[in-house]
C-alpha cells in the first residue's frame, strides 16, 4: 500500500465527505489502483438493533453481517490523467447497488463523483469535500 503521494494520481488519497455527510471515506492506493473505505458513520448503530450497522443489502446474503465501518464503497479506480480517475465502481449500501463511476478532482479539496449505469450521460454527480483542507 502506498503511503506517499509521489504520483499525480495520488492527489486522490485522503479522507473525503459526500454531500449528505452521512459517512467519511478514506481513499488509499493498493497495487496501483485507488479504493475508498468508510472510516466514519454519522449513525454507526442500526436503530432497529442498536448494534453496529452492517451491509444488510449486500446481494450476497452470506456477507450481510459485514460491518459497514471499513466497507470499501469505492473500488478499482485508475488514474487517467487530467485529474480524472475511471474504470472504478461506487457501492450504495442503502440499496446494495453498484454503479460505474468516474471521479474528477475539481480542486485540491473538491471531488465530482459521478455514478452511472451503462452510459455516463445518464448518471448522478455528487460533490465530495476533503476532510483535512490542504492549504
Amino acid at each position: 500500500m502506498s503511503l506517499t503521494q509521489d504520483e499525480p494520481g495520488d492527489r486522490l488519497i485522503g479522507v473525503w465527505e459526500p454531500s449528505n455527510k452521512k459517512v467519511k471515506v478514506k481513499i488509499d492506493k493498493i497495487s496501483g489502483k485507488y479504493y475508498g473505505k468508510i472510516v466514519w458513520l454519522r449513525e454507526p448503530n442500526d436503530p432497529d438493533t442498536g448494534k453496529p450497522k452492517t451491509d444488510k443489502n449486500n446481494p450476497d446474503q452470506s456477507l450481510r453481517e459485514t460491518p459497514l465501518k471499513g466497507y470499501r464503497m469505492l473500488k478499482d479506480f485508475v488514474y487517467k490523467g487530467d485529474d480524472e480517475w475511471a474504470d472504478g465502481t461506487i457501492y450504495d449500501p442503502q440499496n446494495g447497488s453498484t454503479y460505474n463511476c468516474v471521479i474528477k478532482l475539481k480542486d485540491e479539496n473538491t471531488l465530482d463523483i459521478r455514478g452511472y449505469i451503462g452510459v455516463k450521460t445518464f448518471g448522478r454527480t455528487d460533490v465530495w469535500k476533503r476532510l483535512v483542507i490542504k492549504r
Partner: protein
Amino acid sequence: MKTLGHILLGIFCISIISCSSPKPIEIGEHKIQATATGPLFTGVNTATADFKIQDLLPEGVDIEQLSSAKIKSIIVRPESESAPEVLSYTTLLSSPEEDMNQFAFLNQPDKTTASLTIAEDQSFIIDMLKDSSQTLVIDFNLKEDWYEDWIFDVVIEWELTITK
C-alpha cells in the same frame, strides 16, 4: 473388424472424457504474512500481502489449467500477543486485471486467532487466480492506537481443480 472399431472408439471417448474432467489438486495450507505499516490509529486499518498462486501449484501445472477455485477457510492471527483488540475483519482479493472483491469477514473475533466467515459467491476468484499475481487485503477495525507495524499470519485453505 467392426466390433474392434467400436472398442477403439470407446477407448478414445473414455480417454478424452477422463482427460477433460476436473481433477482436484492438493496445495496444502497457504501461509502468508500481511503487514500494515504503523503507526495505526483507532478505527479501520489495512494490511496487504502479494502472492502468486502459480508458486503454490504442483510442478507441471499451469494456472491456465485451473477449472475451479474456492477459498474453503481463512484464519487470521496477529503476530504480536500484546496487540490491541480487533473489533472486526474484512478480507478482499484483487489482481492487476480484475476488480477487488470481498470474500470473508468476522465481527468480534477472538483476540489470538480468527476463523472468518466465507462468502457463498466466489465466482470471481478463478479469473483472479489466472492473473499474473494476487493481492490479499485485510481491513481490520482497531479498538486502540498501535504505534508499530502490524503483522498478521494468515492461513488460507484453497479448493482448486484443474483440467488437463
